[in-house]
Structure formats: structure tokens, C-alpha cells
């Protein structure tokens, strides 16, 4: 008996078979996830019942939506006529009539091409930063931007010449990407000034000279860096740039404008509103908050007492005070710190505050990333003779930022949604600002769900895209194969 069990030779091989029906596909999934035990089964049934009632209650409202009407009353009339007196329904006609206010605020309609062009070019500027030198992705982005510009400018009845010029510019970008994808970063560098010029208009010399201030900073830095080191040289460069911006720029700009009056019609900050405003604040704050956050995080880990104290103070102060408090006191405080009689633009003020606010959060997120790096990484960088800034830039930051991507993106998404808080300083952001303006109209008085759903949907779309992008990035940067 024992002998026959101990020796065994297989004479026929077993062919692979499909798993039993209950262990495959949908059936298996349902069994394992929905009905794996009594408690789970009860919960599943309860969830299904509540889902059913939710759909039953809201579905008619969605299905009865009306797109063509001139007022809320007319909407209700149409719904009552079609589905009976007690029927409910969405009145999307409001969106159809007022969408431009939700998007552009009070921007003059004949100038809509300016924000649209800035929005399109934003992606051209972002492409090299978001996708590095990846040629295919950059081309896809450029094609998307070209299509978007073509369609929206066409829909807005712009000049054909105008559209043709813009398309030629896009073709130029495509050529640039094909020849030297990295060169597109130069466009990224000048984009902020370009966007400011397009959005606010006025003399072209203002933004050009502002960029020149950055050039002043760069030159001072390059000249002084070998002698004074990175920190001192950048500080002196910054001071030089500030002197340029605050003391010299406006007179030079005026002089140049009298010589060469090139410019666009100037617009005021209170004409901005809706998603245009949210994007201006969101994008500028996000792009400025990241570098500042990195510096604050490094500062907090620094051995130099002054820098460390300063960073800790800023971070803790900002994290301890609500954003709205800061928005309220902003006008007051900034008036104290700036030279008298500087007329400080409200949007710029808000951008600076939101930037500082999120930089503090970013700094803590990045500090977490830095703390997660093994000490050996810092030591290996030191042992190879890299100096502090090289080690940060080449070794620690790339790794720390990669670890911090989820945290950074969460902060950015929060920031983008927090732009709606600027309603408290009287800016017409899309959620409350524009919605209350629309509701003040006698035609749309009493409309409730539709504007919130519309605005919420756009916010969701933006935030969801950001979060998808961050997943792409995490995947792309995953090199440790652990």
C-alpha cells in the first residue's frame, strides 16, 4: 500500500481547463464583492434600493431638461405643457443664454479671442514642462490646441486673416517641436508676460520690460554667483530686478510707448470673472507656488538659523490662518509693505496671497518627500563632490518631488477650487459671483440647481484631468522597480 503511493509516474498529461463557471468573470466578481456574506448581502441590497429611489426621484428632472427658453417661467411652462403640471425639469436654457458670463465674466465679447488665445497657448507653454521632450505628446497637445483655437475663434466670428495668422503661429510651434522640442521651453518662459499682455492689454512694453527685469536678475546672478554663492547672488539679483520693476520700468515703458505705440485695448481687472478669473488665479498661483514651496521646504531643513526661522515662521503662520482672513487683510497689509501710491491690482493681490498660501502647504508636502529619502542619497551626493544646489537639483529634488506628486496634486486641486473664495473680496468667480448675478436677473430669479451643476461639472472636469495627469506622471517616473 505505502509502496504504491510512494512511487508514481504520470502517463497522461492533464490538458489545461477553464475554471468552473462560478470562478470566472462577472459571476465570480459579483459573488466575491457583493454577496460574500450575510452582512455584505444586506448592504448590497440596501445600496441597490437607495440607488433605485435616487434615480427614480432625479431622473425625470434630468430627462425633462429644457434648452430653449427665455426665462425660468417659460421653462416651467414648457415642462408643465409637456409632462403635466407636477413634473419637474432642468432649465438649461439659462446656461445657453448666460454661458459666456460663466466663462468670461464681463470681458467684452468682441475681445473673447484674447482669453481664448491665452488659454490655448497655455497648453503650448505647459507641454514641454508636462511631457518633457516627448515629441508625440507635444504634437498631440499642439494639434488639440490648434483645433480648439480654430473652432472657437470660428464660432466667435473672428476675422479670417486673424485666424490664419494664429494658425500660422501654431504651425511654427509644430515645426519647432519637430526640429528642437526642448526649445519650446523658451516659449514657456515668455508665456506669463504674453498672457498678461493678451488678457489685460495696454502697452506691449509693460510685459516686455517686466520680462527684462527677469533678465536683469539672471545677469546679476551669473556675474555674482562665482564670487558670492547661490543665495547671495540670487538675493542681489532679486533686489536689482525689484529696483528695475519698481523704480525704472514705468518711466521707460511710457517713453517707449510714446515712441512706438504698440498695444491692445486695455482692460480693467473688474471686467474679469467666471472661469477666466478662476484660471488666471489658479494657473498663476500654481506655477508660482511650486518653486516657492521647494525653497521653503529646503529652508526649513537648512542649517542656517536665519533662513530656517524665516521658513518655519512663514509656513506656520500661513497654515495657521484661514485663507479668507488673509484675503480680507491683504489689501491693508500689502498697502503697508509697498511704496505709497502704488495702485495694486486686486487680482494680482489675490494671486500673491493664494501663491504664498499654497506654497506653505506645498513646502510641507515636499518636506515629507525629502524626509522619506534614505540618508544615503544625500551622503552619496556629497561624497561625489556635488555642491548643495547641485545635490538638491539633481539628486534629492527629483526623488522627493516624485514621492510628493500625490500630495502636491492634492494641494493644487484644492487651490484651484479655493479660487472660488475670492468672491469674498468682491471678485466675480463662477460659483457664487456669477451665479448670484444671473439670479439677480428677473428672468432667471429662483433658478437653483442648474448653475451649480454646470459650474461643478466644469470644476470636476478640470480637477479630474489634473489628477489623471498626475497618475500618468507617477507611472512615467516610476524607475525604482521595487
Amino acid at each position, binding site marked *: 500500500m505505502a509502496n504504491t503511493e510512494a512511487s508514481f509516474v504520470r502517463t497522461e498529461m492533464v490538458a489545461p481547463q477553464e475554471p468552473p463557471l462560478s470562478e470566472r468573470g462577472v459571476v465570480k466578481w459579483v459573488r466575491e464583492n457583493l454577496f460574500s456574506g450575510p452582512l455584505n448581502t444586506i448592504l448590497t441590497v440596501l445600496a441597490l434600493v437607495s440607488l433605485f429611489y435616487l434615480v427614480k426621484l432625479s431622473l425625470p428632472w434630468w430627462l425633462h431638461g429644457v434648452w430653449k427658453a427665455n426665462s425660468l417661467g417659460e421653462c416651467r411652462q414648457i415642462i408643465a405643457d409637456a409632462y403635466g403640471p407636477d413634473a419637474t425639469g432642468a432649465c438649461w436654457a439659462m446656461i445657453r443664454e448666460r454661458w459666456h458670463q460663466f466663462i468670461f465674466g464681463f470681458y467684452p465679447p468682441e475681445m473673447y479671442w484674447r482669453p481664448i488665445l491665452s488659454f490655448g497657448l497655455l497648453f503650448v507653454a505647459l507641454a514641454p514642462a508636462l511631457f518633457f521632450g516627448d515629441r508625440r505628446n507635444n504634437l498631440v497637445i499642439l494639434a488639440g490646441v490648434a483645433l480648439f483655437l480654430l473652432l472657437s475663434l470660428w464660432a466667435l466670428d473672428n476675422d479670417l486673416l486673424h485666424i490664419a495668422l494664429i494658425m500660422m503661429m501654431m504651425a511654427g510651434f509644430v515645426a519647432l517641436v519637430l526640429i528642437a522640442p526642448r526649445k519650446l521651453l523658451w516659449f514657456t518662459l515668455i508665456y506669463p508676460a504674453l498672457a498678461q499682455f493678451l488678457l489685460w492689454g495696454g502697452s506691449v512694453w509693460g510685459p516686455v520690460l517686466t520680462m527684462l527685469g527677469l533678465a536683469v536678475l539672471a545677469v546679476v546672478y551669473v556675474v555674482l554667483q562665482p564670487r558670492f554663492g547661490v543665495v547671495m547672488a540670487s538675493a542681489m539679483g532679486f533686489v536689482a530686478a525689484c529696483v528695475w520693476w519698481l523704480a525704472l520700468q514705468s518711466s521707460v515703458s511710457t517713453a517707449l510707448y510714446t515712441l512706438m505705440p504698440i498695444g491692445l485695448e486695455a482692460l480693467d481687472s473688474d471686467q474679469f470673472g467666471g472661469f477666466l478669473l478662476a484660471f488666471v488665479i489658479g494657473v498663476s498661483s500654481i506655477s508660482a507656488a511650486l518653486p516657492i514651496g521647494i525653497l521653503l521646504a529646503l529652508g526649513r531643513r537648512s542649517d542656517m538659523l536665519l533662513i530656517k526661522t524665516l521658513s518655519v515662521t512663514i509656513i506656520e503662520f500661513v497654515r495657521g490662518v484661514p485663507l479668507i482672513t488673509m484675503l480680507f487683510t491683504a489689501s491693508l497689509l500689502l498697502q503697508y509693505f509697498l511704496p505709497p501710491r502704488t495702485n495694486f491690482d486686486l487680482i494680482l493681490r489675490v494671486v500673491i496671497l493664494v501663491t504664498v498660501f499654497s506654497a506653505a502647504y506645498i513646502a510641507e508636502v515636499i518636506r515629507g518627500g525629502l524626509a522619506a529619502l534614505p540618508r*544615503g542619497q544625500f551622503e*552619496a551626493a556629497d561624497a561625489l*563632490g556635488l555642491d548643495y544646489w547641485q545635490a538638491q537639483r539633481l539628486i534629492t529634488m527629483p526623488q522627493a518631488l516624485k514621492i510628493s506628486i500625490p500630495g502636491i496634486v492634492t494641494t493644487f486641486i484644492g487651490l484651484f477650487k479655493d479660487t472660488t473664495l475670492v468672491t469674498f473680496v468682491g471678485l466675480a468667480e463662477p460659483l457664487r459671483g456669477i451665479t448670484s448675478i444671473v439670479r439677480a436677473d428677473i428672468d432667471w430669479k429662483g433658478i437653483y440647481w442648474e448653475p451649480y451643476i454646470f459650474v461643478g461639472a466644469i470644476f470636476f472636469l478640470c480637477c479630474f484631468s489634473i489628477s489623471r495627469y498626475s497618475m500618468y506622471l507617477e507611472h512615467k517616473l516610476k524607475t525604482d*522597480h521595487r
Partner: protein
Amino acid sequence: MSEAIARKVDTSHMKISDEVAIQITGMNKWYGAFHVLRDINMTVLKGERIVICGPSGSGKSTLIRCVNRLEEHQQGQIVVDGTELTSDLKNIDKVRSEVGMVFQHFNLFPHLTILENCTLAPIWVRKVPKKEAEETAMHFLSKVKIPEQAHKYPGQLSGGQQQRVAIARSLCMKPRIMLFDEPTSALDPEMIKEVLDTMIQLAEEGMTMICVTHEMGFAQAVANRVIFMDQGQIVEQNAPKEFFNNPQSDRTKLFLSQILGH
């Protein structure tokens, strides 16, 4: 122990000159109130191959980390290749670019490929053109016998391969002195062999080396001097033959009997 060293070591290029590579005089170091290194005096000549051993916590790592200022000493003098280590950052960077270091846990940069790991410091510290740096890197990667892995990431390599890359990375800076801090103690026996082999090859070319290691086979085959440390002090130093066959102090005897077993 010595089965890790399978081959005959070629000593023809191992020449010790009378030039001083590292001079440590009256050096003391504290961690807070804890006196880790006590009155260290040590001269390393160019071409010497020194093995430092001693019980855990005796300050071996701390000592060699002081040589490239990963740790700061509080008293005494350390002169490396004619440059004294003070708080002057210029001197520190100069010494660090002349002294290569290999760590127990490799410390490769996981976000860079093997090739990028090797070219990074030459490009940024020595300002070597990228192409030239890559050629040098490939040369040293071939030397440690992994040129075909150049475009992989460190995470895709075995421990032994990673350690050999770490050695190649240091060599790309063309250092005059190499420091090894227990380079094999995180490795399996098979991999220990390949790493020791690389180190022997380096010794055969006349590199000045200080190795903290418990590979006594390596010490016997390659070192010209073995230093035994205990409680932050140099307790005994001697030529390997003398050191192993005829240890003088009781501590050394105890230590040797423990690590050689039986």
C-alpha cells in the same frame, strides 16, 4: 573566509610611494557627549591598501567618513592630498572630488540610469563634456564587467551588480584615494566574490585604498596594513601576516577568535 578570493593576486603594480596621501594627527570626535573617536593618529602613503576592522560600534565608519568630511571632527587635523579639512566649503568639495567612497548600501541614485549615475558627477563637478563622460563611464563599467547594463535603472540590478556600479561611479571621478565602508556586508556570498574581485583589480592597479571590511581573506591577499579599532581608538596595526598570526593585544586576539570562528 578566503574561499571568496579564488585567484592569484598580481602584486607587480602595488607600489607604496613615500608621498603622503592622508595624514591624521591627534584627531578627536564627539557625538554630543559621546567620544566616538579618540586621539587618532594615522598616516596613509600613496599606494597603500589599508584594511580597518574591529567590533561593531568601534568607530570604523565614523573614521573613514571623517576623511571626506561626511562627518566633522572636532579636534586635531586631517590633511587629504595636501588639503586640510576645515569648515571651508571649497576645500571640502576639492577633497570630495579627489576621494571616492563606496557605501555598504550602494546608495545609487534610483531615478537615474546606470550610465547617468556614472556621468553625473564628472559632468557637473569636473565639467567634462557629456560625450567624454559617457565614454569614461562605459570604460569603467566594462572594467567592473557590466557594460551591458548601462541603460537599466539600479532597481533592476542585483546587489552585487549595484555595488560594482557604485565602484565604477566613484572611479569615473578619477579619484586618487578610494574609501570602502563594508562594501560586501549587505551581499550574498556569490556576490561578495564579484565585488571583492573588482576591489582586488583596483588594488592591483595601484589605487590607494582604505577598506572597512570583515573579509579577512581580502585583507590577507591585498592589504599591506591592517588596523584594528576598538572603542574609538586604534588598538593595533600591523602587516596582515603578523596581524593574523601573531596578534599582540588581548582585544585583537579576542576579536580575531570571534570572527575567524572556532
